[in-house]
């Protein structure tokens, strides 16, 4: 190595140095991108749902004209069950209660929440199904609620709302009223306050209520999101199934496969759509988590470009250096072969010598053991003889 380094002139050393650095930077950027994508818990439902990676998370975003209701999703769920049976996808878990799929839907809106202390008007997300399975928000106290709960009068609020209503964050179990009807605070969450989150729609206080509460006691802007995690036996099966059966016309819905959206292929596709991605012909308002996810898609596409540039620089540089080195080579293929052969011979001899030494050591050890055993037998024999003599004497 030292010899090689000594042979390099200053210019070559600098070039190789920049190539190595560029390669490291490229890989680091790639790693950062992967880390960023990995932090988005809203997009990782499939990972959480199955360790085997055989499920896919699908999100559907609807325009208001689609007028989706809970009944649409109930009918879709029934269809999904029979489709999975038809496709011979059955639950092989030991737990009989285990489910093959889980889903959630949500609608944006506004509600007015009152406690004995104050009344606040906040943005609300009316949720149905297992919304919090898909969105594991950081709980400061309490728990989430689910669409399968007996009572649908629970709410989850962020710490700002909790503070305004009660002056505390530890308020789970407290009763508030929405439209005059008592509701129980099930949990308090920490609202993400990054720049991206604020721009995405989390710039004001938010409360998560059941869809029925939002529709009956608040102002609902209509269901705009349906999320599903379901088996994906072959690539694209889940997305295609949802697109075909969700029951909204193509210009009223956008279907996204969250599981693969940050994959390398998806990022390349996104780059290919540069310039046309921002064009929107559908009247769809994305929820904040999708806005964040789309933001990260853009960032990751940019990081991919940077990664490619750095790696390309390193690759071109090393290729050029290799070609030049090959052209100026002072060695021949036969010479290299002999050197390798010699080294292998030497190595083999070393191994043989080592084996010989070990064999000799083992034999010596055996001999010593034998000697020791024969000594012990002799001693025992002597002792036996003495005892016999003593008995006779007695």
């Amino acid at each position, binding site marked *: 190595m030292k010899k090689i380094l000594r042979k390099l002139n200053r210019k070559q050393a600098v070039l190789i140095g920049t190539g190595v650095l560029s390669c490291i930077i490229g890989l680091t950027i790639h790693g950062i991108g992967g880390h960023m994508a990995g932090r988005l818990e809203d997009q990782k439902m499939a990972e959480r749902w199955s360790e085997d990676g055989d499920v896919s998370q699908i999100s559907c975003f609807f325009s208001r004209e689609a007028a989706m209701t809970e009944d649409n999703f109930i009918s879709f769920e029934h269809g999904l069950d029979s489709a999975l049976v038809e496709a011979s996808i059955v639950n092989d878990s030991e737990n009989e209660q285990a489910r093959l799929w889980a889903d959630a839907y949500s609608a944006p809106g506004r509600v007015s929440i009152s406690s004995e202390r104050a009344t606040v008007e906040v943005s609300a997300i009316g949720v149905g199904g297992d919304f919090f399975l898909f969105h594991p928000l950081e709980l400061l106290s309490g728990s*989430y609620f689910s669409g399968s709960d007996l009572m649908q009068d629970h709410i989850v609020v962020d710490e700002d709302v909790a503070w305004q209503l009660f002056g505390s964050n530890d308020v789970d179990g407290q009763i508030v009223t929405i439209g005059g009807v008592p509701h129980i605070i099930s949990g308090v969450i920490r609202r993400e306050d990054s720049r991206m989150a604020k721009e995405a729609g989390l710039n004001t206080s938010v409360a998560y209520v059941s869809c029925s509460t939002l529709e009956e006691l608040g102002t609902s802007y209509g269901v705009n999101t349906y999320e599903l995690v379901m088996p994906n036996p072959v690539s694209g099966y889940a997305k295609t199934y949802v697109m075909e059966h969700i029951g909204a016309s193509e210009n009223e819905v956008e279907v996204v496969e969250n599981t693969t959206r940050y994959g390398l292929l998806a990022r390349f596709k996104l780059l290919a759509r540069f310039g046309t991605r921002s064009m929107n012909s559908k009247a769809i308002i994305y929820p904040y988590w999708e806005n964040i996810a789309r933001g990260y898609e853009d960032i990751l596409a940019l990081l991919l470009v940077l990664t490619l540039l750095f790696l390309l620089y390193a690759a071109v540089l090393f290729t050029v250096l290799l070609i030049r080195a090959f052209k100026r080579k002072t060695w021949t293929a036969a010479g290299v072969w002999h050197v390798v052969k010699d080294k292998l011979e030497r190595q083999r001899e070393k191994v043989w010598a080592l084996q010989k030494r070990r064999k000799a050591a083992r034999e010596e050890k055996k001999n010593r053991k034998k000697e020791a055993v024969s000594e012990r037998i002799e001693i025992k024999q002597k002792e036996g003889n003495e005892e016999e003599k003593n008995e006779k004497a007695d």
Partner: protein
Amino acid sequence: MNEKKGRRREWVKTAAIVFLSVMLVLTFFSNTIMNYSLPEVAGQNITSGTITSKVRGTGVVESGSLYNVKVTESRKVLSVEVRQGDIVAAGDVICYLAEGESTELQEAKKTLDELQDAYEAAVDAYNLALLTGDYHPDVIQNAGTNLPISAYKDQLTGAQAEVNAQQSVVDSITLQMNELKKKIGLTSDASAAEWQAVQAAAAANVNSLSEAVADWSVSDGNAALSNKKKDLENAQITLQNVNNIVNQLNTLNANLADAEALLAQKQETLELLRTSIGAIFNLHSLYDGIAKAREAVAEQNQLIADLESKAAGGTITADVAGTITAINVVAGESTSPDNPVAVIQPEGKGFTLSFSVTNQQAQKISVGDPGELVNSWWYNDVTATVASIKPDPSSPNTQKLVTFNLTGNLTAGQTLSLQVGQKSANYDNIVPNSAIREDNNGKFILVVETKSSPLGNRYYATRYDVEVLASDDTQSAVSGALYGYEFVITTATKPVEAGQMVRLPD
């Protein structure tokens, strides 16, 4: 050369010292550094106890039998003496009314005047029609009585039969005359002058033949005379016949004239009858109009009498004792018969409250279950019991309407939230709801397990598959391979996976 070697040794020494220092720091703080890289988890121990699933709902308190205080007239209110929520006894004044007749009475009297005018106008119209019309005497005789249609039909048929009979008489005479005319060589349309001319001609023929017989001379011969006499006899016979026929014709002609006159009269009667029957219906309707107008006047008189008898006088009083739940009038405005002046919740009558629940929620409730008020600290003496669980008429397939009987210090119209719970059951393993997680292998909890190491305790999150047996608002009872004292993870600063190392809060 030696200097160079010395410098290298120095450099190696420095590098070794730095490396060792770093390793030392890392060794001392490795646990701390590792701890900070681990997710911090919060949780609590599994407990045993009871779980009670509760169903909550909000509804409006309704009175079993509200009493509406009503007035039958619109009178101006001078002053209202009670307010909503006041307790009144029977006979207490609710409001004072201004003096004067009610708007309804004034209106009724005005209507009576109009109805009387209408009655008189109807009578005049009838009389005018009766007197000025050209009616058959029978019609006038029957005016005012509603004869059946068959009676008019019989009258018409009779008149028509008479006309027909008279026509046949005329026809018979005409036929006889035609035959007689034919006998004397006349056509059927020959007139009296013609048959008299025939009579005159026959007489003239007899006269001329008589003269010829008288003028006979011997020179003419006997044969001629006998011929002439024979002709004369024939002419006399003819004259005799003609005279007879003419006499008959004259008689028949006179009869025909009489018969035709009678026929014309009968036809005239028939026509008159036809015209009269058309008008009789008009007369009858006018007569009915008089009857109706008379009835309307009588009814209006009765109405006025009723209104005068029901007139509230100067006050409106409470008919029953109870609590005023609504007052619908204000001083200066008028009362209205459509709206009750006040609504009274009678004393001692119960309240009910209903709300809709899902079928799943309804399964947790039974008739007779006691209900609790959600904000019970606001109400002291209110008790609620489930009275009925019936399909909700608005969505009978998915919803049930639960009705409670309420007693206590309540007011109709008040909104109340009630909760009713299934009987509590004891469970050995109870965890907070936030501890229950789920994936495609079912529901599970993460339990913190401790492993001792030379550098202290290490904590691992271990997965336990569970089945949720029952849940309430904050806790769930679970079954699984649990001892009952494990520490379950409820929240964590980062997502925790099964088998992952975690740290507990300091």
